[in-house]
């Protein structure tokens, strides 16, 4: 309606005044615009300098925190990382570092709360689950720890997820070993071995853990593969020798140990590392001298059996004299009585059945005297080792 409203015409003076009013308002708005631009420039400059300073402070405090964490001063690390986060809020890796520092400082409740909070924002984050697993392990909550380890394995990872998952699996295996949960540890390690890249360090690490998880057979498989590499490491050779020896597969252990001992790096190791290896090599050599290898010429085999029988008979006599009479000892005595007192190479050479009976008695004697008269030493100990798995000694 206002559109059609009639207004009295403006006088000339009013028209001039209206023009001046429009000009004034335009000038005022222009001035306001200029002031806004100037204020904007000042704010930009102030904000820019502040932002740069914040970045510098964030970097500085982060470096301090990481340094403190590495040097084992988690309390200082917490303060520094908190400070860094004040100036660089929302940096996920920084937050994880802070939570790790809290955990390292044994502020477990805070660390758990923080990690849980991070997990809420990133459900399924492998790294956070790993940290929660470590925290639970530290608090002795094995069920929760294993659960978080498993979720870490299934979770998402930044960067090389394949490698990170492998390392989590190995950590989980290590944790299970520490909890004496060997079957589950062996299972994890077998999975790890199946997925591991063809990198000697990683494979040797898995083999080492397998040894700790009481799985020398699988460890030996890995070590043997590693020993076939050109310039095989002394660790692989030692590992192969050690596990093969443990399994009684002396035919494999001896050459592996010999190669290890001849390696240049072997002599650079500490004495307490070298000594057991040297001892195993010596034992392996002697076991192969004692072992009645069916591939030996008939006479040599008979001679070796005769030698073993004499060693075992002496061990029996000694044990029989010192130990209390028992059914087992009486049984052994009767068996020894059935063996000719003047057993000879010729007699054994002509009677394969006698050879077999004699060796069987040797193994029984070493096994039972070990139980009744304590651990044997010298050749008796080596015969006992053969007795535990006679067929394994020369198994390829």
């Amino acid at each position, binding site marked *: 309606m206002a559109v059609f409203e009639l*207004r009295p015409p*403006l006088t000339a*003076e*009013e028209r001039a*005044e*209206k023009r*001046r*009013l*429009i000009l*004034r*308002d335009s*000038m*005022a*708005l222009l*001035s*306001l*615009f200029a*002031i*806004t631009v*100037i*204020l*904007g420039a*000042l*704010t930009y400059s*102030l*904000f820019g300098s*502040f932002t740069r*300073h914040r970045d510098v*402070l964030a970097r500085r*405090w982060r470096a301090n925190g990481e340094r403190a964490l590495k040097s084992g001063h988690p309390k200082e690390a917490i*303060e520094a990382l*908190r*400070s860094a*986060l*004040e*100036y660089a*809020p*929302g940096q996920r890796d920084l*937050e994880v570092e*802070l939570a790790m520092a809290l955990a390292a400082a044994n*502020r477990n*409740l*805070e660390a758990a*709360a*923080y990690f*849980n*909070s*991070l997990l*809420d*924002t990133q459900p399924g984050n492998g790294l956070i689950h790993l940290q929660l697993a470590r925290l639970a392990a530290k608090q002795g909550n094995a069920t929760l720890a294993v659960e978080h380890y498993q979720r870490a394995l299934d979770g998402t990872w930044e960067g090389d997820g394949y490698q990170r998952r492998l390392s989590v699996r190995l950590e989980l295996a290590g944790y299970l070993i520490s909890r004496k949960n060997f079957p589950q540890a062996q299972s994890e390690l077998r999975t790890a071995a199946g997925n591991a890249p063809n990198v000697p360090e990683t494979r040797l690490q898995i083999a080492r853990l397998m040894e700790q998880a009481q799985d020398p057979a699988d460890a030996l498989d890995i070590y043997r593969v590693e020993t076939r590499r050109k310039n095989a490491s002394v660790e692989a050779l030692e590992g192969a020798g050690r596990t093969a020896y443990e399994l009684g597969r002396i035919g494999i252990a001896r050459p592996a140990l010999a190669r290890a001992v001849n390696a240049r790096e072997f002599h650079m190791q500490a004495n307490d590392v070298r000594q057991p290896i040297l001892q195993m090599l010596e034992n392996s050599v002697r076991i192969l001298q004692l072992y009645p290898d069916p591939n030996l010429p008939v006479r040599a085999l008979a001679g070796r059996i005769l030698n073993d029988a004499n060693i075992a008979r002496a061990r029996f006599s000694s044990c029989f004299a010192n130990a209390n009479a028992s059914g087992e000892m009486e049984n052994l005595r009767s068996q020894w009585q059935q063996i000719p007192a003047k057993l000879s190479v010729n007699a054994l050479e002509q009677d394969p059945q006698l050879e077999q009976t004699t060796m069987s008695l040797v193994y029984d004697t070493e096994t039972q005297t070990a139980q009744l008269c304590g651990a044997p030493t010298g050749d008796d100990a080596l015969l006992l080792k053969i007795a535990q798995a006679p067929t394994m000694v020369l198994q390829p």
Partner: protein
Amino acid sequence: MIGQTLGRVFSSGNRKGTASALDLSKLAPTRDERLFLVLSIFIGVISGLLVVSFRVAIEWIKILTLGSVPHPGQYRLLFVPALAGVLVAALVQWFFPAARGSGVNQTKAALYIYNGYISFKTVIGKFITSSIAIGAGHSLGPEDPSLQIGAGVASIIARKLGLSRQRLRLFAPIGAAAGLAAAFNAPISAILFVIEEVIGQWSAAVLGSIVLSAISSVVVARHFWGSQPMFRIPAITWRDNRELVAYAALGVIGGLFAFVFSRSLGYLRPRLRALPRWTQFCQPGVAGLLVGVIGFFGFPQVMGSGYEVMDQAMHGQFAWKFLLALAVLKLLATTLSFSSGTPGGMFAPTLFIGAMLGAGVGSFEKLFFPHLTGTVGSYALVGMGVLFAGFLRAPLTSVFMVLEVSGNYSIILPVILANTIAYLLSRALQPIPIFEVFTHQDGMDLPSMEEQREEKPLHIEDALEPLLVPVVKGSDAISSVSEAAAEGRASAFLVQLHDGSWYAMTVEELTGAAAALTAETPVERAVKGDRVPTLFPDMPLDNALPYFPRWPLLPVLNRASRGKLEGVITLSGVLERYHSD
């Protein structure tokens, strides 16, 4: 400098304008409306820039005085807030007396008492003194000062452009919304707060401009700070319906804390103000020293606005006992800082205490009921809303603030539940809202927005009288109408015209018409050009009052059936209803 420039540019124009003594409404009748909208954008942008500078100034002062990261045991924590308190007190006492306090009541006073006048000196004073106080560690926040700075910017611009007094009064809330929106980085909350706490009503005249200025200022603030609120909001989850029990408990705890907080301020502030004037020079210094002692002996988190601590609490960085300790100590520190007259706001401390309480409850639940609880951040966020509702008594703003900053609607049930409990509990324990308490302490009597909200205005139906007067049709002859009027012994009667409109005619008017016209003439030819207003029973009774000088009685219509009358109202009936209330 900016103010002086503005003054020079605009005041010259004003002098000329007033000198001409010409009627502006005749020269440019729509000038004010057009300028109103354009200026709202300028106010928003300038307020946004000033608020960004204000916050940066606070951060710079903090780094320069307290160091990049204040730690317990640093001696500077003791003397920096104390010295800053002395400096700020001197500035306030000698140069900027209007900069004292939070800024919300000052803006309301400008609106209701001083016709929207906030001086340039007050804006500068608020900027300088608040940034020094907050930056140096006083336990106060930057939002209320930002609100006052925004209102001041609006007031200066409107004055210098020579807008009418009526417009001038409307500009203060526009600037206030802009300042608060930039400080919060949350435009809806700012708009609601200004409507809920400053102007107290939804006014169509000002709503558009408030929205424009708030959005402009937030655009500026986001250009600098990014789109996130002042604190990073973690993932919000609501896991289990049983969690509502915990949220209800948070509402109760928040309501109790709000009561204690209000009582502490209500007790200490007037007592400190009653002390001799010379003590006002050292009160902020002593308060600063005591706040510094809290920081020195292990809790530097309570110093300053505490946004970074809220952020840390939301992200589960603290254990629940520490969080509760922070809530209690922040309450103490803020009571000291604010009661001493140090310029600075109450919003950030309120949010801080709420966040600590919420995170504390959340962490406790996570510890003891791990399968029931959502994120600690959810509780912290709800806790902020709880104290906002309980202490600042802005229930609507508190709900929308949480929703706006979280950007997550799924948390609405816990927010409404906890906020309502805190609000009702706080109201029951402390009937007078804190801003009103301050107003009374300052010797003013500003309108109470809470009371306004709860007023029960009378409606037309409250004064409705039965239809006892004659009702005739416009086509009826004057003679028959005269008979009906005489029969009804009424001094006035109602005429329904052919277009459905109504006319209330007095007997004198009818007698005059009968003398001039023939008896058969339809009565509608005797009525004047105007018509009675259309009134319905649910309309405010106030709406009817302006019509009584003209009409002897007013018909009240049925909304469902336009031609049907519900009854009438008369001036005597309306006055009687007001007297009886």
